[in-house]
């Protein structure tokens, strides 16, 4: 068992909620969460559907281990067709919302249609209702969370909501749960708002009572927790410095994209690093970092909780932002910092607060602002389009003004909500958008980390570090060190990371557990909890099946091998400093081998024998 076995289908057009049994056969083939929900989506929608039309569907989904005693089991995902990319979108979030879904007895919520008026879904175990959200439409995630807690008079309810960015049509809006954990990428929040669905509120008191073999499961879970505790990365490194410790690492090795990826090292990296978050500020004697934090069931606790100096210009006379809140994590800090050239830690922290408060992806926001600044510098944008503001790299004032403009969704803030691809096309310079399949890069320059270039180019949801994090091997030596400037062997490395990641993302566990765990550690936990015999080999094959299914989804949506590429800047303009000096990303040396290893044609199409081997219809 372990799966709750129940799906809630919510037809927002008709205002109905119906209960369905989980497809057990599909669960054996796709496990849960990313894999299983993508299977449902792919079976139920026209792949060419407009992502913001009522015909698109949106699925909130847990994995079979979500909410269990396994470490890092607080994950859920949102699966839909993404408006930023026109690809399959699967955004994964932590916090406590996912576990609460399982405690209430649900594997998935499938949303279809569009409500005539703003609503929210209330789930109290088996009691489900669509209730009016007209009073909270037009308000932030934080306000919505507070309002729903007050209305339902239960401090234990968990809320996932969209903010004003999603309502204003920002194409990279997020769904934020527990106030500062987000299903952040590809615009899943924009889809939710397009359905007039403001929030989902869940309270579950059933617990998890359907583990297949409780004794076997607990033994596997305990063994796994010991591995995490004994590992220096998951036991000490991540809790102490969080993901933000990478800022100086990636800068030192010359792969920190800077000022819209024009450079690969940032002179202000130390000022916005994980170490800097620990340092006492000169102004008030307090560090930026308040504490670390963990999601449900996590024994790593890598999350950051921070404060902004009350005297900082961004929060002056704004007491709402004087308290502690979530962030900065590395990817957000990079996008808001080095990519815009800003080295003001408090400005980055405040901007990140607003990304959480009103629900949008800080990676895409930072990348879009960086492109806008470059457009402004070259004269393609002027103050006529930017509401009279000059846009400058390195300006904390530019950053803070831009994020507030985006939240308001007016004037140039509307343009910033397009994402860099559409923004750069609108102003005549599509080459300045640092994206793959319409989604902005995260914080690793593929000129200095070659394998990441291939991982980005072939990612099924556009540029993303969480679809094949070869940084672990190429930079950090996990599980073994490879040369980041070498292309040989990277096709196999990328494929291995992509398949393993798809398996983990289908389980309910956090990808960060894999800094210590391999599938050999995860499979026994799945096997103890779920029907069927689950081995590491089966998990890896499942991951490959999920990857090919996502590929299939995108090709049916109209994408081709021509979309498996990188911006010209990364293929033609060499790195100017650091170990990668003179290097571009040599994607063409890796891509053909990657297609071959995948069992795809030279045009990137899964062959019939590959489809049969993986059981894809």
């Amino acid at each position: 068992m372990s799966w709750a076995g129940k799906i809630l289908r919510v037809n927002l057009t008709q205002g109905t909620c119906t209960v369905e049994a989980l497809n057990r056969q599909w669960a054996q083939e796709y496990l849960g969460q990313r894999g299983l929900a993508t299977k449902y989506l792919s079976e139920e929608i026209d792949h060419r559907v407009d992502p913001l039309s009522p015909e698109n569907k949106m699925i909130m989904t847990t994995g079979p281990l979500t909410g269990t005693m396994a470490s890092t089991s607080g994950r859920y995902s949102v699966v839909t067709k993404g408006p930023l990319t026109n690809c399959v979108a699967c955004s994964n979030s932590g916090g406590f919302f996912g576990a609460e879904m399982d405690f209430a007895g649900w594997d998935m919520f499938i949303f279809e249609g569009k409500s005539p008026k703003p609503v929210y879904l209330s789930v109290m175990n088996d009691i489900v209702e669509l209730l009016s959200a007209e009073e909270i439409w037009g308000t932030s995630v934080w306000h919505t969370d507070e309002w729903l807690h007050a209305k339902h008079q239960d401090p234990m309810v968990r809320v996932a909501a969209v903010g004003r960015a999603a309502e204003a049509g920002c194409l990279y809006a997020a769904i934020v749960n527990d106030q500062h954990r987000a299903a952040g990428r590809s615009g899943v929040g924009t889809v939710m708002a397009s359905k007039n669905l403001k929030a989902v509120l869940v309270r579950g008191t059933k617990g998890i009572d359907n583990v297949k073999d409780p004794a076997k499961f607990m033994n596997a879970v305990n063994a796994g927790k010991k591995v995490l505790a004994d590992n220096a990365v998951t036991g000490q490194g991540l809790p102490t410095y969080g993901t933000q410790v990478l800022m100086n690492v990636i800068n030192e090795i010359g792969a920190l994209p800077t000022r819209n990826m024009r450079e690969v090292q940032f002179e202000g990296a130390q000022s916005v690093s994980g170490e800097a978050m620990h340092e006492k500020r000169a102004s008030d004697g307090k560090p930026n970092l308040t504490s670390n934090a963990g999601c449900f069931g996590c024994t790593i606790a890598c999350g950051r909780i921070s404060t902004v100096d009350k005297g900082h210009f961004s929060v002056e006379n704004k007491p709402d932002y004087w308290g502690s809140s979530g962030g900065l994590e590395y990817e957000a800090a990079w996008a808001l910092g080095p990519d815009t050239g800003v080295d003001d830690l408090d400005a980055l922290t405040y901007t990140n607060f607003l990304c959480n408060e009103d629900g949008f992806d800080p990676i895409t926001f930072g990348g879009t602002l960086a492109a806008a600044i470059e457009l402004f510098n070259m004269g393609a944008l002027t103050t006529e389009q930017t509401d009279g503001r000059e846009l400058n790299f390195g300006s904390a004032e530019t950053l803070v003004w831009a994020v507030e403009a985006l939240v308001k969704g007016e004037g140039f803030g509307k343009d910033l909500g397009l994402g860099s691809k559409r923004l750069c096309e609108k102003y005549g310079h599509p080459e300045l958008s640092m994206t793959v399949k319409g989604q902005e890069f995260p914080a690793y320059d593929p000129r200095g980390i070659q394998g990441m270039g291939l991982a980005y180019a072939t990612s099924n949801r556009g540029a993303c570090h969480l679809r094949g994090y070869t940084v672990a091997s190429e930079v950090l030596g996990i599980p073994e060190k490879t040369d980041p400037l070498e292309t040989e062997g990277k096709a196999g490395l990328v494929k291995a990371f992509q398949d393993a990641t798809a398996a983990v993302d289908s389980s309910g566990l956090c990808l960060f557990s894999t800094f210590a765990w391999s599938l050999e550690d995860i499979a026994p936990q799945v096997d103890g909890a779920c029907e069927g015999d689950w081995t590491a080999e089966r998990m890896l094959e499942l991951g490959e099946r999920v990857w090919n299914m996502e590929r299939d989804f995108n090709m049916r949506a109209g994408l081709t091998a021509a979309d498996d590429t990188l911006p010209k800047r990364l293929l033609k303009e060499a790195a100017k400093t650091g170990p990668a000096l003179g290097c571009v990303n040599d994607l063409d040396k890796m891509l053909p081998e990657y297609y071959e290893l995948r069992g795809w044609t030279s045009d990137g199409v899964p062959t019939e024998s590959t489809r049969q081997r993986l059981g894809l219809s």
Partner: protein
Amino acid sequence: MVTVEFKLFATLMEYLPAGAQDHSVRVELSEGATIFDLMDKYRVPRTQAHLVVRNGIFVPPSQRKTYPLQDGDVIALWPPVAGG
């Protein structure tokens, strides 16, 4: 003599001498000194230095006791860390 820049990050920062700026200290060493010699000078436990980088390039453990430091080298060290 060779002069190198020595950088320590994350939990290894505690081994920096007082007054070090930006995680960094300039160090003079005799010709032929190795990365392990440099670490020993500041009592950095060899087992804690997981990621060792010379001028931005990873130095495998086998070379840390043999590679002779060159004038102007920048050596940066981290304990086991990760992110994403």
